[in-house]
């Protein structure tokens, strides 16, 4: 009975949200029940890990980032010039400006051609693999749209069950990496298509996925 209480009230017990009588009951029980003590220990390890994760996963902004952000906010707030110049005169320049290629594991040097490479990767069923799609552009692009179309049986981690994923993005001048963690759920494999659109222009990149 008290073992069930621990399992059902674990969060409230660890958070000390129970009333005094229940807290005392569970204190006494866990002192003598090895199974519940183990459950409690695991929970405390999880909480400590989450706390540590809070700091270890947090990036530090550049030293002057806050100063720049405040200045830019004040400037933009008064003038409202939101990068509109980037949108002008772009048009057909995209094809010449953009190079797409794929890497897996390491960053390759930029190819000297403007056509996308044909690429392929091999995957093992249920074994996640991160594929880095690298987009190199000579000019910064804003308000671009990225669409990833997946073959049947290949999913992007975090987007389970979705065969097509679309989102807005922007590219900085130079190399931009899109890390896609893929997982194969069937042995079918097929072609993954990544398409970047901006204004009336678009570029596509195809990756042949083989499942072994």
């Amino acid at each position, binding site marked *: 009975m008290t073992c069930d209480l621990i399992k059902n009230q674990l969060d409230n017990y660890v958070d000390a949200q129970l009333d005094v009588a229940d807290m005392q009951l569970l204190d006494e029980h866990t002192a003598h029940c090895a199974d519940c003590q183990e459950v409690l*220990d695991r929970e405390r390890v999880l909480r400590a890990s989450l706390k540590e994760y809070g700091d270890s996963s947090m990036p530090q902004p550049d030293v002057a980032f806050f100063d720049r952000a405040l200045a830019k906010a004040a400037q933009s707030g008064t003038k409202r010039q939101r990068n509109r110049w980037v949108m002008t005169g772009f048009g057909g320049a995209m094809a010449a400006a953009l190079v797409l290629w794929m890497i897996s594991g390491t960053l390759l040097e930029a190819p000297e051609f403007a056509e996308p490479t044909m690429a392929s990767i091999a995957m093992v069923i249920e074994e996640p693999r991160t594929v880095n799609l690298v987009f190199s552009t000579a000019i910064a692009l804003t308000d671009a749209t990225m669409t990833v179309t997946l073959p049947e049986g290949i999913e992007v981690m975090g987007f389970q069950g979705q065969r097509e*994923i679309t989102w*807005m993005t922007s590219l900085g001048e130079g190399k931009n990496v899109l890390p896609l963690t893929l997982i194969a759920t069937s042995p079918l494999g097929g072609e993954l298509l990544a398409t970047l659109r901006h204004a009336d222009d678009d570029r596509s990149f195809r990756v042949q996925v083989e499942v072994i």
Partner: protein
Amino acid sequence: MTSVDQHQRASFDALLRPHLDRLYRFAFRLAGTKPDAEDLFQDVLTKVFARMDDLVELEEPGAWLCRVMYNHFIDGRRRYARQRLVSVSEDQLPEKNLESLPGKLDPVRDAERLDNIMQLQRALDSLSDDHRLVVLLHDSEGYKLSEIQEITGDPVGTIKSRLHRARARLREILAAEGTISGA
């Protein structure tokens, strides 16, 4: 810049600066990547500058700023999607950001800690956005349930239920991987 502009800029700076660290952390918890967090942070500062009149009236601007950021993020969730393109150098490739975890003079234990933290990250990534956000805000960032309620506008009961489910799911995933042991 006119003297009025300069005065407005100085007031903005003085009002915002004490809250920037917390706001930056909140942006990262929402957006999930540093470039997205910085885009979100910048957009919200720009938006808030236009609402200086509201800002100066507030006794607790911190919670209000987080609420503005949360609403802005929800409105433009696709723009700040977790999978956006990022400008990188080679040493910033995925999964390298956690390798700078501070060590404690014990290489084996440090390696175990790093491994556990990376497994925790993958487990967190598998949660829904709502569940991940509430567990990160509460258990990693130390927000109270009432603070999360003030930011998101969701009832405390709903937030508590999400937190409970998120932790339960994390326990399942990490137990299956043998990551969290009682030892």
